[in-house]
């Protein structure tokens, strides 16, 4: 019975890490193509701040993280338009503010300050935080994410190719970019529990960097999702075996895959040059 429970738990954690890794991988490619890295960096820290609020209020940090990430995705653009401050600069202001507020709320949260379990859960990830409910939320979000991308792919594709031209042709690019930013914010929020606030950004960009070795945009997204998912699952297994923090194991695995993919891409390019 005990072994069966353990296997079920491992299966739940593995499934969650594959889904979260894939969502981050997809988001990473889209964000990088749209040059929204700074914006999403701020949103990632908004999610971290939301998680800290969750700790403070003693409610599940997943939901507060998601709320803050979505709120941040929605307000940065209009705030930038209203104030005339470039969105990148505004994102950095918000990033610093979110960081400061995260520390304050962690400090104010009930129980001993910096208690490893609760703080570790949001800063460097914890597999103990992975529950069946969490997995269900992940599955629903992954389905919604895939559905939005599939339905609106041609619109997104046009924006990813040339945003200004898409706008000139009558696509409300701001609306679609907001939608992508919100989706990325949600992907980040759900990944926080596994990877942690310090490392979630790595899971966005390392798989995306691998994805960029592919030759077309669909393959880029698929490769990035595949590497995100593989890094997630392999990192969880490593974490179990070596008894190390799961977030760090996932990111180290992703980095090893990135090095292997880069070497492969280099050899392939050399061969093309020779022949």
């Amino acid at each position, binding site marked *: 019975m005990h072994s069966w429970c353990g296997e079920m738990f491992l299966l739940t954690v593995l499934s969650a890490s594959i889904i979260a890794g894939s969502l981050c991988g997809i988001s990473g490619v889209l964000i990088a193509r749209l040059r929204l890295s700074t914006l999403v960096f701020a949103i990632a820290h908004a999610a971290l701040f939301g998680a800290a609020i969750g700790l403070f209020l003693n409610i599940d940090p997943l939901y507060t993280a998601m709320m803050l990430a979505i709120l941040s995705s929605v307000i940065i653009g209009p705030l930038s338009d209203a104030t005339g401050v470039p969105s990148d600069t505004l994102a950095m202001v918000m990033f610093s503010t979110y960081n400061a507020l995260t520390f304050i709320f962690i400090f104010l949260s009930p129980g001993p300050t910096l208690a490893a379990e609760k703080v570790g859960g949001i800063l460097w990830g914890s597999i103990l935080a992975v529950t069946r409910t969490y997995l269900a939320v992940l599955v629903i979000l992954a389905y919604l994410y895939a559905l939005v991308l599939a339905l*609106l792919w041609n619109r997104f594709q*046009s924006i990813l190719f040339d945003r200004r*031209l898409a706008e*000139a042709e009558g696509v409300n690019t701001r609306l679609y970019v907001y939608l992508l930013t919100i989706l990325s914010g949600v992907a980040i929020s759900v990944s926080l529990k596994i990877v942690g606030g310090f490392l979630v950004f790595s899971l966005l960009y390392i798989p995306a960097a691998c994805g960029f070795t592919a030759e077309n945009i669909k393959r880029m997204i698929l490769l990035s999702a595949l590497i995100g998912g593989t890094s997630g699952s392999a990192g969880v297994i490593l974490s179990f075996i070596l008894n190390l923090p799961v977030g760090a194991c996932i990111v180290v695995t992703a980095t090893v895959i990135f090095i292997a993919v880069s070497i492969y891409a280099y050899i392939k390019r050399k061969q093309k040059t020779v022949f």
Partner: protein
Amino acid sequence: MVLDPAVELRNVTTIYSGENRPAIRNISLEINAGDYVLVTGPNGSGKTTLLETILGILKPVSGIVKVFGHDMVRSPYKARMMCSYLPQDFMKKPDEPFKVREIVAMGLASKRALGRLSRDDWKRVDEVLKLLGIDKLSDRPIGRLSGGQQQKVFLARALSRDPKLLLLDEPFSSLDDDSRRFVADLLYKLNRKGMTIVLVSHAPPKIAGLTMRVRLVDGCIAGVERCSS
């Protein structure tokens, strides 16, 4: 019934953010449906700014811009659906991950609900590629093509939309002599079929069928000449 002009500009001034000097100043211009307009002028005279202000990509600080009766500041999207635009800075990097056929289809997709393309739409994409003689490049990544080939791809994208108003920014800049003649002839035929064309060029080849010439100097209209057909 009085038809709205294709383009109507009234006392339009556009200033780029962070600059004090207007890029175009107090422009008033009316372009009728079916016109074929050539906008000329030296570098920096405001030709591209004029096109992008017409499309509503640049917002004027004063004045009124209307395309087929739609106010381009308040509600630009409906009018843009009827327009196609060939930008001046079209060149893409060699690692661009999009192929020619996909790029041309994007132009049509932006006119369709949710961007969904039918079999007829894809047929239209292939027809336009063939018309411009670039059908053999369909599966090539755009970044690996020459400047002239890339310019034809963007022209194909613009034409695939079958626009009522076609705005072209230096459409001959990367083309060889034969292609220039071919494109000039194609534009003439499209205009004859009723398409309104606004073409910006600082050194245009011989263009047949023009109905209006506009000369810009230092952001202002220096002259408007109605041409007799």
